[in-house]
């Protein structure tokens, strides 16, 4: 691997950080320029993450590639960035979502507050850092960076509703950050290392007392991630916050819950995998029970919500619960399907968040929210925004309705789209349909999971039907919302990505399977990290 290729690994963090910082001094009147800058940066990131994905999925990579030593110190002592299939996948998903949300925001929403595009870039930098880092404390720093940006973005647009939701969101996340620190320092106190790969090697050799300390630390740490992921008793903040956020922000927030899930998946399989001795499988029963309860809570929430924003927010919970319970069940054959589900459901929910505002624009409820926003920011923007709005699309209602139908199919997991493929892959893995391995014994927990997964799909179907009929067929004041091309394009592109995922399910599943295999056999990961040579000679 040539020298410059090696440095590609730091770019997903550095590029948005620099662009975000460079945009701060630019005057807010040049919003369009900022938007274009941000969009170009995100586009570059998207291409970059594709390249990184290709590098990560090349088999037989030489030792040391995909590991970037910050400060050129070897692994257990210095901080490293690690690229593997899972992190490359998450990078790709992040930049794809960000691209769509950013394009959407340029049409209207970035005018309703200051520094939207800077915050957006900083959020991406924090997300990418969290996915790439191989060090626990560094993970905390990137986590905080991502959270700080997300506070700003949630408050974007201001208004009493958002400030109230933001207050709760910030308070709970600050408390969770304290837990994060306690967990990390407990683990450091017991093992003397913060490097994830080193930690997984050391765990088996610890004395029982120290191992108990690590388990306590991991438990406390896990609570911090579960708050982020929205596991049931820790998730009451989520629907309000997500429903209050502006649409492009809510769309990109769809991946914030997945950060929690990513870390739990990574750490539980790396540190508490088969090699952990007596600690193997630590916390799985909690993940399983919590995941099942989250699906149930989310499904009830989906049925109970009147507003579409809350419906989408509860769908986030269902998606989180499905993934957490799949991790908790711990069948290697299910994880590939779960990863496929992660990608598909994140794209769907993001598209749905973007679509909601377009659909509701013509209705009174939506108009109220908008009026509040305008009131908070002053009337001056209304004229400006009319000028900026491009050509309205013809056949608005037909296109919106079609997108809504696709969202409903994807959320409920009906064939032929990727929502169905994902659920089928999870259940297929559970019942041993993949053909490569013998069928695992199906336990009571497995049956509960299967039932809840299918019932949650039914709940989503009923709720989407009800909302769809009320919005598109039984609408009394037949106003057609004015939607411009740049707003509907991101929704269409996200849904097209889901359709593409369903058409290319074979290659996608092969990638997910390879990812899952490498997660369940972390020796490759730890060896790569710990034996990586220093750059520039010995």
């Amino acid at each position: 691997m040539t020298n410059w290729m090696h440095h590609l690994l730091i770019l997903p963090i550095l590029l948005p950080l620099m662009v975000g910082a460079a945009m701060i001094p630019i005057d807010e009147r040049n919003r369009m320029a900022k938007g274009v800058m941000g969009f170009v940066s995100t586009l570059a990131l998207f291409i970059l993450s594709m390249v990184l994905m290709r590098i990560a999925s090349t088999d037989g990579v030489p030792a040391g590639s995909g590991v970037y030593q910050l400060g050129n110190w070897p692994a257990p002592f210095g901080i490293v960035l690690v690229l593997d299939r899972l992190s490359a996948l998450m990078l790709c998903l992040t930049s794809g979502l960000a691209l769509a949300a950013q394009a959407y925001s340029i049409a209207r929403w970035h005018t309703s507050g200051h520094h939207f595009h800077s915050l957006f870039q900083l959020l991406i930098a924090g997300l990418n850092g969290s996915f790439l880092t191989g060090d626990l404390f560094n993970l905390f720093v990137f986590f905080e960076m991502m959270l700080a940006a997300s506070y700003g973005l949630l408050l974007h647009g201001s208004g009493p509703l958002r400030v109230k939701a933001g207050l709760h969101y910030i308070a709970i996340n600050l408390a969770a950050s304290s837990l994060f620190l306690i967990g990390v320092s407990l683990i450091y106190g017991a093992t003397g290392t913060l490097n994830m790969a080193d930690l997984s090697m050391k765990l088996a050799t610890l004395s029982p007392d120290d191992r108990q300390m690590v388990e306590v630390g991991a438990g406390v740490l896990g609570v911090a991630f579960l708050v982020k992921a929205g596991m049931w008793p820790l998730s009451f903040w989520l629907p309000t916050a997500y429903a209050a956020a502006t649409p492009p922000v809510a769309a990109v927030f769809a991946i914030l819950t997945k950060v929690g899930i990513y870390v739990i998946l990574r750490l539980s399989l790396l540190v508490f995998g088969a090699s952990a001795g007596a600690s193997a499988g630590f916390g799985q029963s909690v993940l399983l029970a919590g995941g099942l309860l989250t699906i149930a809570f989310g499904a009830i929430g989906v049925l109970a919500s009147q507003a579409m924003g809350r419906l989408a927010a509860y769908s986030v919970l269902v998606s989180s619960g499905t993934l957490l319970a799949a991790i908790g069940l711990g069948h290697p054959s299910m994880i590939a399907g779960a990863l496929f589900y992660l990608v598909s459901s994140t794209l769907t929910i993001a598209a749905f968040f973007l679509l909601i505002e377009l659909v509701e624009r013509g209705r009174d409820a939506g108009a109220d929210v908008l009026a509040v926003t305008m009131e908070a920011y002053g009337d001056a923007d209304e004229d400006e925004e009319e000028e900026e709005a491009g050509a309205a699309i013809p056949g608005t209602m037909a296109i919106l309705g079609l997108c809504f139908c696709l969202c409903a199919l994807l959320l409920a997991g009906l064939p032929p789209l990727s929502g169905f493929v994902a659920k089928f892959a999870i259940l297929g893995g559970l019942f041993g349909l993949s053909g490569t391995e013998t069928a695992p014994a199906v336990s009571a927990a497995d049956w509960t999971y299967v039932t809840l997964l299918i019932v949650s799909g039914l709940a989503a179907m009923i709720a989407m039907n009800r909302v769809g009929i009320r919005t598109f067929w039984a609408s009394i004041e037949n106003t057609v919302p004015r939607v411009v091309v740049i707003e509907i394009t991101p929704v269409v592109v996200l849904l097209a990505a889901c359709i593409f995922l369903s058409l290319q399910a074979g290659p996608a599943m092969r990638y997910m399977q390879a990812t899952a295999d490498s997660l369940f056999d972390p020796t490759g990961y730890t060896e790569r990290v710990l034996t990586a040579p220093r750059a520039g000679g010995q």
Partner: protein
Amino acid sequence: MEIILSAAIGVLTASGVYLLLRPRTYQVIIGLSLLSYAVNLFIFGMGRLRVNAPPVLEPGGVGDLSRFTDPVPQALVLTAIVIGFAMTALFLVVLLASRGFTGTDHVDGREQRHD
């Protein structure tokens, strides 16, 4: 010394959690601050308590490592303090914005809610 430190952490955490659960925004922010002090002390304690031991090596060689204290938790505490401070400042701004919108310092803004 261990007793004093652990008691201090315990008292700070208990007061922090109590205040965090109170309904006024000012109490919540003080609670979060106390909690972050407790956490900072806790991180520091995880490097083991040593008196009169420097965390950095002296010039001219490594020397006897048992005479030094663990520098990593001290570096972590520094980072945690900075981040915690910034977050508290940010929370303060949101708190004031909420006060401005709702006219009350209740965390739910309930006294003025009509919906």
